[in-house]
């Protein structure tokens, strides 16, 4: 009896396992952002249309914050990075709210002809839809439509990237010696504490995002299994996906910007 449904291979490239569902949805988010930006900025008008207002609002808000944090000149240089981070995480958090069924393509369907509850050898197959007549076997299960930030690797990877941005920028702006000396203030023996504090900052910012989004997903699954109702899970999905997603995206982007600004001094 062959009932196994292959859950879709995690792709193994260069010795590392990639969850290709996460990768696909992340790339999709990026493509959506590029598409929206290209379409909206193609015809910029002085009196803005609807989408332009929204994007201008986001850019303006982050421009103000970046200039407060970095000073005028450098604020503009870091603005694209922080703004893009915010928009990407926002889209990644919110995209899980869209209900997409999990599809399976290909494979063969076996039909239980003599009605004895399982498939004997030699029974023909049909192309009945999955679940109707028999079992589908050997097909390819498309990845589930989930927020990419639900996978721990995404927030941690982004946090590591921004940690590197912060410290490499600090070295480039201040020079190596001044950067190393900064670990020693206010008191010299606080150096290991400063190092741990920066690492803990990166850890906490990534786990905050992961905890909120993954927790939301877990709660959704549990509530959907426990309650035989449609309205309550939808309301919960709205709260967790949209509201919490927006706030956590904002917090993630702002905190990373603050951590970068803490390393790079304002006076230049």
């Amino acid at each position: 009896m062959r009932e196994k449904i292959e859950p879709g291979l995690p792709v193994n490239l260069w010795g590392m396992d990639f969850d290709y569902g996460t990768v696909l949805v992340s790339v999709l988010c990026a493509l959506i952002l590029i598409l929206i930006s290209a379409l909206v900025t193609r015809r910029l008008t002085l009196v803005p249309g609807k989408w332009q207002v929204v994007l201008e609002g986001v850019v303006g808000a982050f421009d103000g914050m970046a200039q407060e944090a970095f000073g005028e000149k450098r604020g503009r240089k870091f603005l694209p990075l922080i703004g893009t981070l915010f928009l990407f995480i926002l889209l990644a958090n919110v995209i899980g709210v869209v209900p997409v069924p999990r599809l399976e393509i290909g494979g063969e369907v076996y039909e239980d002809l003599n009605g004895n509850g399982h498939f004997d050898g030699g029974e023909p197959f049909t192309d009945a839809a999955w679940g109707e007549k028999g079992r589908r076997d050997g097909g390819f299960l498309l990845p589930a439509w989930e927020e990419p930030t639900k996978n721990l690797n995404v927030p941690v990877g982004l946090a590591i990237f921004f940690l590197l941005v912060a410290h490499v920028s600090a070295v480039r702006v201040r020079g190596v010696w001044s950067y190393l000396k900064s670990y020693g203030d206010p008191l010299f023996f606080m150096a290991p504490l400063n190092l741990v504090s920066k690492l803990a900052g990166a850890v906490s910012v990534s786990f905050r995002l992961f905890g909120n989004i993954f927790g939301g997903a877990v709660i959704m699954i549990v509530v959907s299994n426990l309650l035989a109702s449609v309205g309550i899970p939808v309301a919960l999905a709205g709260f967790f996906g949209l509201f919490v997603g927006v706030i956590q995206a904002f917090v993630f982007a702002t905190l990373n910007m603050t951590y970068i600004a803490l390393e790079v001094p304002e006076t230049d």
Partner: protein
Amino acid sequence: MDLEAVKFLAPQITKAAAFLGAGLCMGIGAIGAAVGEGFVAGKACEAISRRPDVYNDLFRTMIVGQAISESTGIYSLVIAIILIFVA
């Protein structure tokens, strides 16, 4: 302690500990979220009474502030659910 009794009770004690842990977790975690959000709501009322014309902004701030305070309560809920169902 009798070896057989221990071997028999071990999975039950583990499950019991998971439930105790879940209860501790959500119980204590709920205190903080409640106190914090209550303080926010109270101060929001004060602020709105002082400037009723900015009601919308103050209300929105209250909701956002309470939602961020709620985050750690959600962490407690997640760990409690994991302890009950998964562990």
